[in-house]
């Protein structure tokens, strides 16, 4: 027997696995309509490459990967694309997400598949590309794209250990269990492809000891290979990637790091099987095993279901009694989330649909005070102090939350499970994580603003210092000149400022003298008239700037009309006063010139108004 390690904490909730294991895997069949969310995993959503109305075949790619951490989506049966729009999906947020909707034609006609007989002949990039194009994302929890996981080149160097996760520690779920019982050969086949790809020194398939049939099947299938089946004690959450790695290797994945940092890569058995089918048969990932269980169902069982099938499609086949069900959970009772709409589609991470009755999973009891009993700390697989985290979460003490390693919480729910005061601890941690991230963002933003402000302050100070220096230099230069002039003995130039003032005074006196000499007239003096004109022009410009073309045109028209009216009155006055002919002629010719200008302005305004109305 191989040595296995233990991890801190963990719990033993009621397993409730037998209910769904009475019958073998059942084919769920083809629903009328299937929905494919474009984002089924961590990473960028896929980009649709089909149009509404397009006929597609089973296995045909309908959305391509967009970016490195992204996987394509394939049609899981043949039919017609009927919509590309937001639909309800199974997500904790309960929000709709972009989806491709396919109406099946019932023929289930495959696209032409090209499998590979001997994968040993392929180089690694080609194998990775097959896995990537097959749309394979982790079938366990987060649904991380498998090709990305396998393609990561660890800085630490070589992958020593390949871990295949057959633990399935969540209560109720038996999808992996039954898959290992019925398709152990394909799982081992996929594991061997992974061995070829990763070239580990050891390959360990970890499985909990509560699955004896699956263990026997795997042992038989692994005969003659160097895949080691490691049976581990049953304890929740030993199926968590980091926990399983600690159980099998005694090593902990560094906080914030990847298993690759300690020479380990870990994949789920479902992922191994999908890789096997993708490589040897060319089949993309279009179906999975889903456990449908809970007391609100007449026949709990496991289905092989086409991805994109509505949840209701499975529930109905398992004898769902809606009136007895209190909630629908995707995933297990420890980490699953409530689904608000049973029309939401099955995706690659839908390992279980749980429809419990009220007595089976009663609603949470009212929360009582935390008595810091420490049961949570004893149960925490990450060796956190949940009671302290709770305290800090309630008090919104973000710094202390981070000091107490909030972000190492894997949200397994063990603390909430054991809490005698029924405190929804995980819920507090989820909310606090979001709050801390937001606080970090805000801090980065305010830091940025502060730096900019400080830089500006510095610049302004520098500039004022420079100005000051220049002024000083000028002053010194002037003083120097004055000293030199004084030294030269020139009295008049000795004080240039006094000289300048004297000069200005003399000029002013002369101007005043000139003005008083002129005879008083009704007309404004020419100098003042010019100033007035300038002021007018400036005012006009001031009002014009910021005006729309239409407003400008209107203003222009108004001005021209005023000028015309002015000229006409002047002409009449002149004629009435029997003025000089030359004056009358000049006024008339001015009027002649003004009229076409006015007409032009009117036309311009009309066209502008038309444009505006249009």
């Amino acid at each position, binding site marked *: 027997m191989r040595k296995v*390690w233990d*991890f*801190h904490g963990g719990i033993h*909730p009621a397993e409730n696995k037998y209910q769904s294991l009475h019958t073998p895997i059942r084919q769920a069949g083809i629903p009328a309509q299937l929905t494919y969310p474009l984002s089924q995993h961590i990473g960028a959503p896929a980009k649709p490459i089909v149009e509404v109305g397009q006929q597609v075949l089973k296995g045909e790619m309908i959305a391509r990967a967009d970016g490195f951490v992204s996987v394509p989506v394939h049609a899981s049966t043949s039919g017609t694309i009927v919509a590309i729009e937001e639909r309800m999906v199974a997500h*904790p947020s309960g929000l709709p997400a972009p989806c491709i909707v396919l109406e099946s034609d019932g023929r289930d006609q495959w696209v032409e598949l090209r499998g590979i007989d001997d994968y040993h002949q392929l180089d690694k990039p080609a194998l990775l590309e097959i896995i990537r194009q097959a749309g394979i994302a982790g079938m366990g929890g987060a649904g991380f794209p498998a090709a990305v996981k396998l393609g990561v080149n660890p800085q630490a160097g070589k992958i020593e250990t390949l871990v295949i996760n057959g633990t399935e520690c969540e209560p109720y779920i038996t999808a992996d269990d039954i898959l290992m019982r019925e398709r152990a050969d394909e799982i081992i086949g996929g594991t061997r492809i992974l061995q070829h790809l990763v070239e580990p020194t050891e390959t360990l398939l970890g499985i909990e000891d509560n699955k004896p049939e699956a263990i026997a099947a795997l042992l038989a299938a692994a005969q003659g290979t160097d895949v080691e089946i490691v049976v581990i004690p049953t304890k929740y959450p030993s199926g968590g990637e980091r926990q399983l790695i*600690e159980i099998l290797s*005694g*090593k*902990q*994945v*560094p*906080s*914030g790091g990847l298993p690759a940092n*300690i020479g380990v890569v870990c994949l789920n058995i479902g992922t191994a099987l999908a890789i096997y089918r993708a490589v040897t048969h060319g089949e993309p990932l279009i179906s999975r095993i889903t456990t449908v269980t809970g007391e609100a169902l007449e026949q709990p069982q496991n289905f092989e279901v086409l991805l994109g099938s509505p949840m209701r499609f499975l529930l109905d086949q398992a004898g769902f009694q809606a009136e007895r069900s209190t*909630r629908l*959970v995707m995933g297990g*009772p*420890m*980490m*699953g*989330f*409530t689904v*608000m709409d049973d029309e939401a589609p099955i995706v690659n991470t839908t390992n279980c649909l*749980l429809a419990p009755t009220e007595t089976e*999973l009663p609603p*949470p*009891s009212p929360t*009582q*005070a*935390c*008595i*810091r*009993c*420490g*049961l949570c*700390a*004893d149960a925490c*697989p*990450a*060796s*956190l*102090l949940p*009671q*302290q985290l709770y305290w800090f979460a309630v008090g919104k003490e973000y710094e202390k939350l981070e000091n*107490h*390693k909030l972000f*190492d919480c894997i*949200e397994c*729910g063990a603390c*909430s*499970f*054991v*809490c*005698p*005061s*029924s405190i*929804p601890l*995980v*819920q507090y941690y*989820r909310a606090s994580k979001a709050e801390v991230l937001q606080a970090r963002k805000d801090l980065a933003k305010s830091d940025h603003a502060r730096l900019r402000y400080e830089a500006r302050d510095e610049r302004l100070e520098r500039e004022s210092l420079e100005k000051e220096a220049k002024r000083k230099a000028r002053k010194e230069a002037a003083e120097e000149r004055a000293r030199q002039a004084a030294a030269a003995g020139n009295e008049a130039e000795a004080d240039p400022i006094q000289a300048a003032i004297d000069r200005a005074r003399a000029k002013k006196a002369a101007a005043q003298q000139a003005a008083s000499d002129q005879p008083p007239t009704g007309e404004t003096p020419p100098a003042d008239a010019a100033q007035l004109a300038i002021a007018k022009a400036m005012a006009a410009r001031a009002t014009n700037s910021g005006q729309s073309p239409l407003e400008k045109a209107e203003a222009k028209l108004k001005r021209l009309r005023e000028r015309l009216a002015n000229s006409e009155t002047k002409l009449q006055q002149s004629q009435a006063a029997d003025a000089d002919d030359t004056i009358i002629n000049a006024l008339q010719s001015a009027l002649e010139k003004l009229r076409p200008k006015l007409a032009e302005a009117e036309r311009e305004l009309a066209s502008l108004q038309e444009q505006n109305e249009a």
Partner: protein
Amino acid sequence: MRVTSPHAHGPLSTAEVMRAVLIASLPGIVALTHFFGFGVLVNILWACLVALGCEALALALRKRPIGFYLNDASALVTATLLAIAMPPGSPWWLILVGVAFSILIAKHLYGGLGYNPFNPAMVGYVVLLISFPVEMTAWLTPAGVEATNTPGILAALQACFAPDTIDAITMATPLDLLRQNNSLLLEDLWLQTPQYGRWAGIGWEWANIGFLIGGLWLLYRRIFTWHAPVAMLTSLALMSAIFFDGGSSASGGSPLFHMLSGGTMFGAFFIVTDPVTSAVSNHGRLVYGALIGLLIFLIRVWGNYPDAVAFSVLLMNFAAPFIDYYTQPKTYGHGGSEG
């Protein structure tokens, strides 16, 4: 129904924890009653009544649902623990003052269950011990010492509710005697004073064994971890072994004597284990328990009070946040267990 994970919940509830503590105190209570009479039970019942009244009053003043919080049984635990610590047959007003102080001041003024930095029962006890030293040290002569009869139900009720009408025979406790002794070898002290029994004081040794049994049962039920009580008992045993001195007249008493005297076992399993006021991590609880054991010995042997559980616990309640700061466990992935 929209509920966040986890959807499953374990069987334990806070009320269940409190009830378990009450049940676990039974063997010790039985032993105390056997040796000190029905005053023990009258103490407990009267204290519980007062506690429920005070708790309801505080909850009403704080506008909390009274029924819901009374159901958690935490007030009953506080009252029972305080009543056990008090001399059997204490007058009603003494118990009233102690329990009211525990519940109203030490518990609810600090925010109620879970928020009190100091163990409420021990706060009440210390308040009484300092304010009413005569009443608080008047321990009845236990059964089996000379030809005394322990009070029956009526006498116990009379002692409690009409304390002026009765004369009880009290005697110095074994811890008292040991502290006052400065001339006799321990062996002679044992022979000359009737209070000493097989391993420690008559009656006291069995009460301690009773509380030990209850504590072990709580450990078995995983109501608390072993860390704090084991650390406390170990450090107390170590200290007494170091200063045993072969049983001279200056001896501090044998380890066995300290284990089974005064409030040792009661403190170790029912007071030190109070999760609210202790250190939180298991490492922290080791430190917390060990320091309490050390303080108990120091105060018992060189202090002014014959027993020291309450003072030691309160002093370490002060230190618990400080201990927490230095005993935070190593989180997964932070270099805890490297292959």
